[in-house]
């Protein structure tokens, strides 16, 4: 156990912090979130620092970094509410593809993903689903050297930014995963803004035909690959959220020191001091749970890995909710407006509860483990 950043981690996080502070100011960030299309320059600047290739092993031209580095990086991204598709592409899709036995896909895609020239996202949720990550109504049929996909996927994270989508489908009663170009014939991608400054897409697949080589995995291997994507996504998101909390506590403390009421700075009021202290407390515990999530990724026992990740997810979501509410309350009316960025953090921290399995889902997993 060692919590000190090594030299590489220190350099990486320092560079990232500078980049984010230069290019993820509130106006820049909001403008990009208002667009359907990916801002290539912003994305490339992240990729250039290694963010896109962090989890990609060196043999696929990435950096093969540890889960610990993943936490360090996503803490920084969270501080700046970076909304580019790091989690869907560089974390989830990458972890998923890494689980594939299809060496061709790995050789073709991973280097492109690591360099930033290919963005992917995982299209796994279907209408009527909330936490389930198995496909139900999207079907794949195998004939004549190709697969034909039909179905609908919803809430695909930054789906409209992706050049390729990992699509889950039912194939012969089992889960199968396909890598589908976003512009394939029969694909209809409808993009929406989200409450928390991301984008998401509904995807309709109408007789989409892909090559046999597009099969990433099927059966247990596909379920495992999807689970790995979720596991990595949860860990990254916990760190992202902890980073966002860190910055939100800073912003709030600064406001309390500056703003005066009844002739004194707000920071003089003991009740507000204590609420700020509670925010810091929750932030420190959430950061700790982001570390726990990272340790989970290195855990070989699947039940224990899920247990730790679910513990982390529930805990971080709860801390985010509490810190977000407190930040707005401590700012008073002005915290309710879009003029400050307090609300941006609040909304990001709120919606993370629902992404990648909500609190009820993760508690259920934990409760099942408890009973044994």
């Amino acid at each position, binding site marked *: 156990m060692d919590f000190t950043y090594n030299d590489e981690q220190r350099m990486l996080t320092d560079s990232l912090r500078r980049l984010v502070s230069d290019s993820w100011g509130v106006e820049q960030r909001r403008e990009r979130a208002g667009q359907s299309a990916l801002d290539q320059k912003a994305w490339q600047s992240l990729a250039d620092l290694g963010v896109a290739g962090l989890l990609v092993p060196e043999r696929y031209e990435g950096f093969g970094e540890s889960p610990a580095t993943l936490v360090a990086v996503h803490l920084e991204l969270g501080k700046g509410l970076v909304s580019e598709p790091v989690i869907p592409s560089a974390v989830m899709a990458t972890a998923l593809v890494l689980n594939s036995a299809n060496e061709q896909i790995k050789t073709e895609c991973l280097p492109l993903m690591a360099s930033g020239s290919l963005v992917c996202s995982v299209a796994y949720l279907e209408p*009527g689903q909330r936490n389930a990550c198995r496909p139900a109504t999207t079907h794949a049929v195998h004939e004549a050297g190709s697969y034909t996909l039909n179905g609908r996927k919803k809430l695909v994270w930054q789906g409209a930014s992706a050049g390729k989508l990992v699509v889950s489908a039912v194939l012969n009663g089992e889960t199968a995963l396909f890598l589908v170009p976003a512009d394939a014939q029969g694909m209809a991608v409808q993009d929406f803004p989200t*409450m*928390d400054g991301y984008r998401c897409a509904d995807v309709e697949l109408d007789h989409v035909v892909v090559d046999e080589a597009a099969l990433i995995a099927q059966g247990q291997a596909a379920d495992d690959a999807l689970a790995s994507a979720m596991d990595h996504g949860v860990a990254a998101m916990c760190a992202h959220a902890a980073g966002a909390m860190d910055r939100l506590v800073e912003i709030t403390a600064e406001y309390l020191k500056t703003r005066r009421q009844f002739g004194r700075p707000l920071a003089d009021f003991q009740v507000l001091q204590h609420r700020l202290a509670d925010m810091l407390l929750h932030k420190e515990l959430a950061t700790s749970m982001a570390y726990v999530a990272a340790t989970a990724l290195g855990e070989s026992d699947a039940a224990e890995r899920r247990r730790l990740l679910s513990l982390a997810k529930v805990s971080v979501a709860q801390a985010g909710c509490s810190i977000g509410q407190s930040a707005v309350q401590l700012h008073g*009316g002005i915290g309710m407006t879009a003029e400050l960025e307090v609300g941006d953090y609040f*909304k990001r921290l709120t919606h993370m509860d629902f992404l990648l399995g909500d609190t*009820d889902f993760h508690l259920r997993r934990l409760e099942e483990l408890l009973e044994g």
Partner: protein
Amino acid sequence: MDLTWNAQEIAFRHEVREFVQAELPADIRTKVFRHQRLDKNDYIRWHRVLAAKGWGAPNWPVEFGGTGWNPLQRLIFEIECAKGGAPRLLPFGLGMIGPVLMKYGSKSLQDRFLSRMLTVEDWWCQGYSEPGAGSDLASLKTRATRTDDGYVVNGQKTWTTLGQYADWMFCLARTDTEAKPQRGISLLLIDLRQPGVTVRPIRTLDGGVDVNEVWLDDVNVPFENLVGNENEGWTYAKYLLGHERTGIAGIGHCHRELQILKTLAAQTLIDGEPAIRNARLKEKIVRIEIDIVALEMLLLRVAANSDQGPGPQASILKIRGSEIQQDLAMLQMEVMGVDTWPYDPVWMEADAAFSGPGAEFAAAASAGYFDMRKTSIYGGTTEVQKTIIAKMILGS
């Protein structure tokens, strides 16, 4: 002490319920239940329906055109209207400046304005808060300078709810800059349909624009529009803020949102199962029912004792009402879950051609959660209310 409803009270409840069912326009009811934005005309239509029935001012004495109802009747009326899907009554005239005019205004001001409030001939708004003076009214900076014909007002007001529709503002302005902070403030009625008035909407977290900033730039106010005496506005302001003791709890809102929550929970499937079967959600709904029942009984106790001065109960009602409204919004969001993620403020407009990808209520559920955070801030933050309570107990 008699803890049962008497026959008259029961009959009155039925009368209101049936009236709302029969007379509330269906399109308004739908908007309210779907949490869509109401427009100016929606409010006015409902007020005029009530006025036609003689119920235009439930909290006013008969002599001013009010119903003369007692506090229990007003409470029953509020709950039944809200449950039936009616918009809330605009508080600016009926609940705020109206009662002040009745108590402190000249006969001519009363004649000029009061009866028009029942039918919303004038849309009133509040001019209390200023940037830099949230819960701290004493530090307000807007100035009214005396000229030969009246006052010239300069300053900036903020958090002006629905100010974008307003014809008139009741405004606190400093008329004596030498006096102590709480002295030297006057209450003026300002016609907003004149040059020098600029209204700028403030976009809130959920993308809504219910509140506004209002700039007053050499705005004219004739002497006749001064309420009461010059420099005594602080007294009127306190009366205005302290006047309504039970409405602040939002009990009607709570009842309606609980109904909506239960409907959502029954209709929404979570991975194939109705949300209402979820053990955690069931407990949360039960617990919020507890909170609402307790709040309502406390309201009844306060309303029944309304001859006593305002005690800590008024602050308790404000605190709990806020929390319950926030919890209800949070639960609605939880029921809809990840489907609340996609969101565009235009989906909240009733006539939006497109209302988002999720289920009928999904987008509004999350927007409502963010919007409701305001309830523990406006009208005296929860922190301010607790300090008031503590002072009453500790006598400090």
